[in-house]
């Protein structure tokens, strides 16, 4: 298989991937960079388990062609805690509010929530539910997830 060289910023670091042009961003993250936080649930844009942030926007990495990442900035769940290991407010809030059960949806859920809170740290419940409408959770029933995101918003607003 022919390979191409794609350079971009991954969780703050400049990286280059040598992968076939037909790979998706998800496949590249998991198999080339061995970042297994983003999950493959459906592979067709339906479940959100693969959600990452590209240039500030939440996208489904399972249907994002890797060549489109050239020159862009990608953030995955692995890149949101501080370098010293301090968890991101969303991670803290998900733990404290039981936003996680089996955990399969969690990294995607948190990335969608992060994209939302980065632009709007004080969302209404409706805005939260719209922000995570593309993220399926088979365990929690969403109530604790919404509560976790509300709490994270609070933590972020307090810090400012």
């Amino acid at each position: 298989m022919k390979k191409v060289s794609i350079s971009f910023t991954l969780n703050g670091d400049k990286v280059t991937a040598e992968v076939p042009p037909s790979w998706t961003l998800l496949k590249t993250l998991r198999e080339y960079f061995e970042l297994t936080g983003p999950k493959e649930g459906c592979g067709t844009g339906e479940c959100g388990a693969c959600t990452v942030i590209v240039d500030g926007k939440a996208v489904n990495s399972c249907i994002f062609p890797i060549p489109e990442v050239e020159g862009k900035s990608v953030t995955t769940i692995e890149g949101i805690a501080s370098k010293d290991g301090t968890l991101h407010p969303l991670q803290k809030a998900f733990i404290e509010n039981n936003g996680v059960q089996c955990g399969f949806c969690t990294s995607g859920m948190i990335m969608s929530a992060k994209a939302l809170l980065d632009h709007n740290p004080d969302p209404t419940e409706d805005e939260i539910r719209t922000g995570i409408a593309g993220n399926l959770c088979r365990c929690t029933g969403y109530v604790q997830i919404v509560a976790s995101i509300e709490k994270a918003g609070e933590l972020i607003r307090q810090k400012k």
Partner: protein
Amino acid sequence: MVDYDYKKPKSLKEVFGLLKKYGPKATLIAGGTDVMINIRNRELSPEILISLRGLSDLCYIRKNNGYHIGALTTHRMLEQSDMVRAGLSALHDAASQVGSVQIRNVATVGGNICTAAPSADTAGPLLALDATVALEGPNGRRRVPIADFFTGPSETVRKGNEVLVEFDIPEEPGHFGSAYWKHSRRKAMDLPLLGIAVGLALSESQEISNARLGLTVAAPVPIRAYKAEEFLIGKRLGDDVLVEAGKIASSEASPRDSLRGKAWYRREMIEVFVPRMAKLAAERIRGE
């Protein structure tokens, strides 16, 4: 897994060159939310994808002498545009309900129309807003009214060497409002089992001076309900008139039985939602 090459040209000229070189072995890709799914389902196995995402100058929403929307404009941009919300409300209703935030962030309005799914959410609103599609090929541009664009499920008048570049929407004189109803079973992440878009122009005395109805999943292609429109024009807005228009529109549709819904159900829902969307359009004109 299908293996293919990927090119991201920076100009339309380069796109035309690549299309000429690869012919039917090439597929254009914009947001990829249809293309990538089709590849995964093996409905599509291109040798090369030609990305349009390098054509950043086809990504805009402008107003001068009518509205102009670049083909690469994402649903998210339409959703977040105050100009679209105020002036092209039906399109705003539709764009903000496509898929999820993740899908809307990448999926384009041009891709939605070129896929030509009978359920394309933006098709009804673009019909009700009387949009014109601008297609550009190696020999120049041509313009096609959206009502003539769809020729069958997944089929359009676009030729293989043409790129959809822009939608042009006239600014209606006087008081104009529009609304779109996506009839689906779930609030999010569901395709419509019926789509109803209404555009209305009203005089000061509440007389209907212009009306356009765009229906999706109501026939093999998105359609205008011309007879219902004709019936409405010149009448005073009122319940009886709208109910009758709903009946006429329903008789113009030719829905089919599908897993999502039966034909009789779709017909009845057209009767219900044509009046409701007309009222919502009128409320929007009055600024309610």
